């Protein structure tokens, strides 16, 4: 089979799986509904309970799960290639810690502002992620030439620790209900209440995903190191900048929508690589698609396993992801 044929075939396979999951997931829940009835336009909206549950309660949640899952998984792929480290995650470079601090401040200080139907918490968390990205970027490019991936990694890890301390401090001085709300946000959740937050996050994720598409083959070359990539015709510094900034933007948008949902950005790329190899022209789109379906399925488990009680989706992904991560470590060493 030609290379093009293989790329298209594999992506089509993942796409079909994702579409099936996304159509099926909204029909499952404590109340079972029928797709046919939900889409039956002859019934008036007010009396069509199935349509209301489908379009108001479940579809936004599935869509936000798909968007967050796709974005985090793809950002994970890009950062792993950029740092040449298969154990990197979208949260390695401090973006999510910045976002969490922003959200934390919005909760405890009762920020009242909103923008285009988006409330203060996602706005503050997005701002936090941008600030964290800016700090890490400035540190890593402070040296005379290029972007140092070593400094990137160290600055990110340090910033993570620093922001975590700030988060603990704010939590400590906050009152009980505020602290609980903030902690709940940090567990991650896809109950986004309507379409407005999804629409607000969409432009940023689309821009990032387009940037990812442009750099797919370049990421293959970067995996042999920057010197080797440059010798094969890659403008390394430009590629590294684009990879870092777009992956950070994507992560910031995803976290502001769903909270810092862990492990998606590492489990999904690894599973995809095990299945289809390491060509980023396949790994990137396949991870985005599989990340979407994987998070939707995790969220499905989160809202049905202990119904009517809901488990935070971040807890579900971490309970799957933690052991998986350890298995990977053992397998790699």
């Amino acid at each position: 089979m030609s290379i093009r044929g293989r790329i298209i075939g594999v992506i089509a396979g993942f796409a079909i799986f994702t579409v099936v999951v996304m159509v099926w997931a909204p029909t499952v829940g404590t109340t079972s509904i029928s797709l046919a009835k939900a889409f039956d336009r002859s019934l008036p909206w007010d009396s069509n309970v199935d349509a209301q549950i489908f379009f108001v309660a479940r579809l936004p949640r599935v869509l936000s799960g798909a968007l967050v899952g796709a974005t985090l998984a793809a950002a994970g792929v890009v950062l792993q290639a950029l740092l040449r480290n298969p154990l990197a995650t979208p949260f390695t470079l401090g973006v999510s810690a910045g976002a969490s601090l922003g959200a934390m401040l919005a909760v405890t200080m009762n920020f009242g502002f909103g923008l285009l139907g988006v409330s203060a918490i996602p706005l503050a968390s997005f701002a936090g992620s941008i600030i964290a990205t800016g700090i890490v970027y400035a540190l890593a490019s402070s040296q005379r030439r290029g972007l140092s991936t070593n400094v990137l990694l160290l600055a990110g890890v340090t910033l993570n620790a620093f922001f975590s301390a700030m988060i603990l401090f704010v939590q400590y001085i906050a009152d009980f209900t505020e602290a609980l709300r903030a902690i709940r946000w940090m567990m991650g959740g896809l109950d986004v209440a309507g379409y407005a937050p999804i629409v607000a996050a969409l432009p940023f994720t689309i821009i990032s995903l387009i940037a990812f598409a442009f750099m797919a083959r370049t990421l293959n070359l970067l995996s042999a190191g920057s010197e080797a990539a440059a010798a094969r015709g890659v403008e390394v510094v430009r590629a590294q900048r684009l990879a870092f900034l777009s992956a950070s933007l994507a992560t910031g948008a995803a976290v502001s929508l769903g909270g810092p949902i862990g492990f998606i950005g590492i489990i999904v790329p690894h599973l995809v690589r095990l299945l289809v190899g390491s060509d980023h022209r396949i790994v990137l789109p396949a991870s985005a698609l599989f990340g979407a379906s994987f998070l939707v399925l995790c969220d499905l488990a989160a809202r049905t396993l202990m119904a009517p009680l809901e488990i935070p989706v971040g807890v579900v992904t971490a309970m799957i992801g933690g052991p998986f991560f350890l298995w990977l470590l053992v397998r790699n060493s």
Partner: protein
Amino acid sequence: MRDLLWADNVSFRYAAGAPLVVDGVTVRLADGALAGILGPNGSGKTTLLRLLSGTRRPGSGRVLLDDRPLDQLSRRDAARQIAVVPQETELAFEYTAIEIVLMGRHPHLGVFTVEGPEDLRIARDAMTATGTNHLEDRPFHELSGGEKQRVVIAAALAQSATLLLLDEPTASLDLGYQLEISSLLSRLNQDHRVTMAISTHDLNLAASICRELILMRNGRVLAAGPTNEVLTPENITLLYDVEADVQINSETGHMTVVPIRRVELRQKTL
């Protein structure tokens, strides 16, 4: 013969305040040349190759490719003419040998272009030339050192460049592979008219395939010229502080270097 690549009095340091790693070096590579770069560890061989390939820019001086300043070319345009075989290739992810070789096609492809039948043919021809066809679908990280090196050389050949710069291509190989790689390089130079510069610690490899040599020490050129004029016991002593005997081997007809003993460091004239 015209100069294909000309480094004109280039100097380079890795960071401001750091010592010069390459210090006023002038190198001319004629079209079709097969030049060896010799020198002790830390003499600036690898850095000189980076300057010649354009992945690093000299702090002063200039590098001309076909009479055009190399730093005026985009990386992509430069890579279409100059391919590099690094000392070691460490991959962050697992790729098959053919995927590695196809990466050599990168500078010839558009952003969204996928390698077509022509690219595959070029990649497979390069694998044939390096005797790695049977490894096509094997994971690169499972190959032996010699196989890896030959696959990486195939990737450089797939780049369809006229110039090939190799950084200690035989350093990690056993005797059999050393001979194999050196005859491969010699063949590529003669049959495919690939101009080459090879940095190496292996004096006998250099003596057997390189028609000219550049001797480097402390970032400077100690001597340069035809192999039989440059590879003298005196120069070897200046280069490595080693007393050596140089003879013509009756079997191969090549110069052979036999190191005898390390000499005490003494006042250098250079």
